[in-house]
């Protein structure tokens, strides 16, 4: 018997022009509609000006992208590692795990340091999830937390994830206090919350989401202060510029772009598209003039904001697993990257070479942050532990 494939075509009156024709069954904003092919084309062209078609818009876009690359290339008169040739090479690197924090009971997804440098908040994929603060575990009724952040004062913690929200929990020294009751929902997105960060005070929170936007919220009122549109896919990470350098932040997404935003106007100032896959982590260089990114394409990259281009790629043929998380040491000389192959690679930012590879975790490294005073860094992993390295 031969295989026969049947193609079913709906034939009937078009929802739009009412003529009886072969229909295309499509979904617009989750609603099924049955339009004939002519009406589908007409609909696709709505929103275009005279003489504009999807094709002309695409061509114009490509032309501009080429022009942008040309402008950037004109100023590409040196390489970072060349300029850094005379810098003293790094000596032998001795860094090891000093503490292993167990007790999460499930994959650690994110963590943050308190400004007092000794406390850490972390979250995992547990129901209900736990906060680890000092050595007290505080249980809160929130599931699937993908992002957490300590407030600058150390008195509150923000978190969110698959609930599409970012909530703020005040912390108290009373272990018995029911913190769930004091939870304040601040941010509301239409898809998962991927990252959150307090700005310079406890009063405002910046969030990024799977809905493709970032947003700035007032904690007290829950009001949306500014929203940031520009990514064409999920936004996975964000980082605020060091306070001295002004009101900007950088975000990275599944559209392979890293965007730099002006927090007050909501405008995207600069955009970088050289990664070949999702950008999982972005972090500002300590001086604020550059930022690093880590991606599923197994590379970390350094982008110079004033030269408006990528200036370094940190990669090796032997590294094929994605980077989940990056952070700089205090001076910006070292870049730490947590990888999905369970390792942490340490890169010499200026020379572009790998300084060290750190083993220890028994599953993906999902999060990595250097302490505020630069004396240590903490890594969290799917192996249920957090490790402090110094």
């Amino acid at each position, binding site marked *: 018997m031969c295989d026969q494939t049947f193609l079913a075509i709906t034939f009937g009156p078009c929802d739009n022009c009412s003529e009886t024709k072969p229909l295309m069954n499509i979904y617009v904003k989750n609603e099924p509609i049955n339009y004939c092919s002519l009406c589908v084309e007409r609909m*696709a062209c*709505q*929103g*275009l000006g005279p003489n504009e078609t*999807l094709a002309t*818009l*695409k061509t114009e*876009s490509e032309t501009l*992208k080429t022009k*942008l690359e040309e*402008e*950037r290339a004109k100023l590409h*008169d*040196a*390489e*970072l590692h060349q*300029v*850094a040739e005379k*810098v003293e090479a790094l000596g032998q690197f*001795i*860094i090891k795990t*000093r503490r292993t924090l167990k007790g999460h009971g499930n994959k650690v997804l994110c963590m943050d340091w308190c400004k007092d440098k000794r406390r850490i908040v972390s979250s995992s994929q547990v129901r209900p999830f736990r906060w680890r603060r000092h050595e007290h575990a505080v249980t809160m009724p929130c599931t699937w937390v993908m992002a957490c952040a300590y407030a600058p004062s150390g008195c509150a913690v923000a978190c969110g994830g698959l609930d599409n929200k970012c909530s703020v929990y005040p912390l108290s020294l009373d272990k018995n206090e029911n913190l769930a009751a004091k939870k304040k929902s601040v941010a509301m997105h239409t*898809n998962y919350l991927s990252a959150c960060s307090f700005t310079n005070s406890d009063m405002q929170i910046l969030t990024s989401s799977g*809905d*493709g936007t970032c947003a700035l919220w007032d904690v007290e009122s829950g009001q949306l202060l500014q929203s940031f*549109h*520009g*990514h*064409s*896919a*999920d936004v996975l990470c964000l980082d605020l510029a060091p306070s001295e350098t002004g009101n900007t932040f950088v975000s990275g997404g599944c559209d392979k772009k890293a965007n730099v935003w002006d927090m007050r106007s909501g*405008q995207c*100032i*600069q*955009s970088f598209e050289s990664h070949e896959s999702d950008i999982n982590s972005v972090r500002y*260089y*300590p*001086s604020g*003039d550059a930022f690093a990114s880590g991606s599923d394409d197994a590379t970390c990259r350094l982008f*110079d904001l*004033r*030269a*408006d*281009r990528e*200036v370094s790629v940190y990669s090796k043929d032997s590294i094929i697993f994605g980077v989940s998380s990056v952070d700089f*040491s*205090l*001076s*910006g*000389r*070292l870049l730490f990257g947590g990888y999905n192959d369970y390792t942490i690679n340490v890169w010499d930012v*200026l020379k572009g070479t790998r300084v060290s590879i750190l083993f220890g975790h028994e599953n993906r490294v999902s999060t990595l942050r*250097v302490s505020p*005073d*630069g*004396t*240590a*860094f903490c890594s969290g992993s799917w192996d249920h532990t957090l490790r*402090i390295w*110094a």
Partner: protein
Amino acid sequence: MARDMSDIDILKMELQQLQKEVKNEREPVSKTAKELVDWVEANSAEDILLKGVPEDKNPFKEKGGCIIT
């Protein structure tokens, strides 16, 4: 929200963004890279992860052990 936008809207948004970015001011890499290097050198001394500290001053070193009385 990106997920709800049609292809046309996304293209238009990208186009507007590109038109803005082309006009951005830029500096040559030779100048900016030098400034990055200078910043690192200026701050290297305080970078403990870079320079390391003697074991006895390391705040994360496990304390304890034997006490001889």
